[in-house]
């Protein structure tokens, strides 16, 4: 590491983002010593999942200025798809055991969930938001917000009417014993899901930074007219963005089927959590969503550990509110803020 980059690191450590991240890590370690390493393990495992959800919300806001209140419903679509792929396969496997098939069943389900979620995203964009883009841009932020509330209501109730109210879930993905980290036991499903989340995040980061699609998305996010001026078909980029964001939500939904069985209102908790994250780290800050996910997870684990169940909605809320007072644009706030200051 040369001097300039170490200077950069030190500078970053002094910024609000750096301080918070450092504090988070310190708190995590301190609590782990006090209460046992499960705090750390739990934070990592749940944090990865929340990060995946938050990335989608953040992406939609950053690129399209849509504050998506229906994000949890794409999570629901994902879990529903995964269920309808995995369940018949599992039934079939009961009669005709097949090691390979039982190994890849969950993977098929999760991949299917992501694909269906992405398609649902494209459909949403083409049927609703493309219409709105064509018609008027005035009051865009709030119009879109209300529209997503409408989408949420529709999707929840369509699920209820078509697929019923039952809890459609699976017991586990792979019927194997938990793995042990020290004296903490974590199920294999969770470890794999954490792996999926991390892989998805890395892939996404690569996509955004180094592919032409990612560059286009970033270009549109930074300046829509500029993007049109260099010949980018913005409508296509918007649809792709929607597909990506919803695909991520559905991927999270599919991966978490073992924990969140599919039912109409399953998306509410993931939605709230992803919103807490993006507010904490700053709107449209896609990269910040990842540390944000772990931070929120830590907040909640710590609150539960010290205050008891049920407080995890009270104390972290006050904490985020406090942080907002001192960093009004989130802890990783960038200088570009005109986008959401409407």
């Amino acid at each position, binding site marked *: 590491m040369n001097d300039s980059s170490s200077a950069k690191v030190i500078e970053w450590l002094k910024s609000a983002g750096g301080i918070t991240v450092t504090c988070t890590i310190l708190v995590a370690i301190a609590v782990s010593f006090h209460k046992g390493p499960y705090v750390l393990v739990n934070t990592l495992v749940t944090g990865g999942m929340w990060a995946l959800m938050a990335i989608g919300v953040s992406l939609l*806001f950053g690129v399209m200025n849509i*504050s998506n209140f229906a994000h949890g419903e794409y999570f629901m679509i994902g879990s529903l798809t995964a269920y309808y792929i995995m369940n018949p396969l599992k039934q079939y496997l009961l009669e005709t055991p097949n090691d390979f098939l039982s190994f890849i069943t969950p993977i098929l389900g999760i991949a299917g969930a992501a694909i269906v979620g992405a398609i649902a995203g494209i459909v949403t964009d083409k049927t*609703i938001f493309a*219409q*709105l883009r064509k*018609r*008027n841009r*005035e*009051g865009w*932020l*709030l*119009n*879109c917000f*209300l*529209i997503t*509330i*409408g*989408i*949420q*209501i*529709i999707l*929840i*109730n*369509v699920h*209820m*009417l078509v697929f019923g109210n039952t809890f459609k879930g699976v017991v586990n993905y792979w019927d194997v014993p938990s793995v042990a980290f020290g004296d903490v036991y974590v199920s294999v499903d969770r470890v794999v899901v954490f792996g999926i989340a991390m892989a998805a995040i890395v892939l996404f980061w690569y996509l955004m930074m180094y592919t032409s699609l990612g560059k286009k998305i970033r270009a549109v996010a930074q300046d829509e007219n500029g993007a049109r001026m260099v010949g980018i078909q913005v409508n296509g980029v918007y649809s792709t963005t929607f597909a990506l964001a919803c695909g991520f939500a559905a991927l999270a939904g599919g991966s978490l089927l073992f924990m969140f069985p599919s039912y109409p209102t399953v998306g509410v908790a993931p939605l*709230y959590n992803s*919103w*807490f994250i993006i*507010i904490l780290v700053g*709107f449209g800050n896609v990269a910040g969503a990842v540390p944000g996910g772990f931070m929120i997870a830590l907040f909640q684990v710590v609150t539960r550990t010290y205050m008891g169940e*049920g*407080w995890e*909605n*009270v104390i972290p*809320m*006050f904490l*985020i*509110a406090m942080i*907002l*007072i001192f960093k*009004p*644009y*989130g802890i990783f706030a960038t200088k570009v*803020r005109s986008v*959401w*200051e*409407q």
Partner: protein
Amino acid sequence: MTQLTQDNSTGFSGILGKICLSPMGLAGLAILFLLPLVPPFNQDYMIRWLISGAIVAAAAVAFDFSAGYLGIVNFGYAAFIGLGAYTSAIISNKIGISPFITIFAGALVSAGLGVLTGIVSLRLRGMFAICFTWFIGIALMGLCLKLDWLTRGPLGLQCDGFFEGNSSLPYYYLILAIMIFTYLVLGLMIRSDYGLAFRAIGQNMEAAMTSGVHPTKYRVINFTMSCFFAGLIGGFYGHYYGILTPELLHTQKTVEVLVIAYIGGRSSLWGGIVAAFPFIFAMELLRSSLSDLPGINLIIYGVFLIAIMVYYPGGVAQFFKNLTARKQRSTSSTAQKAKTAEAGV
């Protein structure tokens, strides 16, 4: 109630105009007053619907006061309503004073939290301010669940009614009075210099600051007023339905008010009132006549919401504005037409 300020500030409508009413608005109010006396609206369930409509209407007016003018959507609005409701219910249960007094206590406590929120959220803009209020709402609801020695948590807090007897009619006139009171007070605020300042801050805070408008003062005043009325309406809610559960503070309830306020039309105040009554009636009728397929009424609601936002985001207020504009245009000469066209630019 339409406060389209035309030049006709003379005579009767001029006097009405001073208190933010138009002949049409007055007629509407008269209808609301007489409606529960006319069949089929004189049945108790119809009056109940009217009360629901009036509660939402009043809440939408107070909500629009900060969302429409200041540009800050109070996403924890239901929590402010709930805070008023719980305060009033707890005081009246513990000390045993009349609910007529305690609802003002509830309103004051809500307003107090409004002051705090206003001050604390001063530095926040746009979505951050919205989410800040949202978090306050979530935290309040969590507290309401956890502090069960005070609120009885999920068991539900029972409270006394305003009136003896079974009829809902006196309650209707009470909430109607609260609604009109809310509208008139907030309408007069908007008419005054304050309204101008609110708009200025809402449109561009920095510009407003440079032109000498002090945002701190105005934002706090706005929040306080809005929350005061939220608390007042909450107090009524509690003493009317007789039971309060933490669910009242849920974000879903904010969304219900927000939708009415937006369908009514942003920054109009009266739009919410015009939208609330038909909306509540339509929703109840849909729910009741499609009871074999529960949930389908909500799907229709969702589709309607999306359609409005895509095709008619101005809402009811825009509709009436277009209506009056058309009337004007058809009576005026072509020269005037050109003039309006130019003025429209």
